[in-house]
């Protein structure tokens, strides 16, 4: 029973459901309804900048939801609604920024860092593999003393 109510709470807390429950919009077709829900998640609320139109309770988000609803009902497709929003609020309004020369760093930056990290890791590994024996970090005298100590230790253990 407890588990069931917990599951219910999680399901009912779903923001997409909350919208439908809250405003009970009628759509001409299930496709339009799916498009509307998709768009609300694609678009960022520029007032509360880390929320989508679904999540945000800002008055502007409410207006933009209504506008999106009207446009979807009028038969607008996803691209044209994206274009409408970008023309007014800029690329920032899209959660997924378009791929173009000014956004290359944004898209491929993480890959660049992975490659850079891999390169550093590789060089460090090569360095230690080749350099471990030959490295002159400790002097020959110290090396001799070290092996002497290790030999004594070994003998002590054997006894």
């Amino acid at each position, binding site marked *: 029973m407890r588990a069931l109510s917990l599951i219910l709470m999680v399901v009912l807390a779903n923001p997409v459901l909350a919208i439908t429950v809250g405003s009970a919009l009628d759509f001409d077709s299930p496709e339009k309804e799916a498009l509307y829900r998709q768009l609300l998640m694609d678009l960022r609320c*520029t*007032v509360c*900048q880390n929320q989508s139109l679904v999540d945000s309770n800002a*008055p*502007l988000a409410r*207006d*933009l939801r209504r*506008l999106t609803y009207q446009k979807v009902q009028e038969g607008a497709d996803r691209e044209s609604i994206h274009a409408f929003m*970008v*023309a*007014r*609020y*800029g690329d*920032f309004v899209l959660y997924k920024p378009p791929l173009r020369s000014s956004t290359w760093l944004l898209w491929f930056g993480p890959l660049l860092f992975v490659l850079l990290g891999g390169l*550093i890791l590789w*060089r*460090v590994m090569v*360095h230690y593999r080749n350099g471990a024996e030959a490295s002159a970090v400790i002097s020959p005298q110290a090396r001799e003393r070290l092996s002497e100590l290790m030999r004594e230790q070994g003998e002590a253990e054997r006894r």
Partner: protein
Amino acid sequence: MRGGLTLLPLGIFVALILLFWIGLGLNPRELNSPLVGQSVPEFSVPDLMHAERPLTEQSLMGQVSVVNVWASWCVSCRAEHQQILALAKQGVQVIGLNYKDEFEDAVDYLQENGNPYQAIGFDHKGEVGIEWGVYATPETFVIDRHGVVRHKHTGPIRPATLEQELMPLIAQLEAE
């Protein structure tokens, strides 16, 4: 090789500090408006003071003007009001866009604080605001005499913003 590797973490550290220094210094509210460089969007909205005389994009043609988006409920608008008044006093055409406000509240606000606006669009539902990409009042646009948006300032105008940013730009546009 050895020296390079030892200095690498320091190099990465310095690069990150620089990146954060610049990145965290940016104002996330200051979004580049796609309207800058474009003609003002077409709109038509009743004037707050003369309902029979609508404000349209044609009202902005022929001279340099400043479009200021404000509302009586907007606290930062009160903060910048002195600067808007100063702008009007210097002879700049200032057009207001009263955004998502109640008629009485807007009129009371102007009576209380003074009216710097030569015309005021009464955008009760915020529809014109959407056309202009308004997302955070106050917003201020500088429009040249051909009706092209040349600059947008988001947030309250401070005396320094007025003197260092807006006035030089307006003077430059008037000289064009």
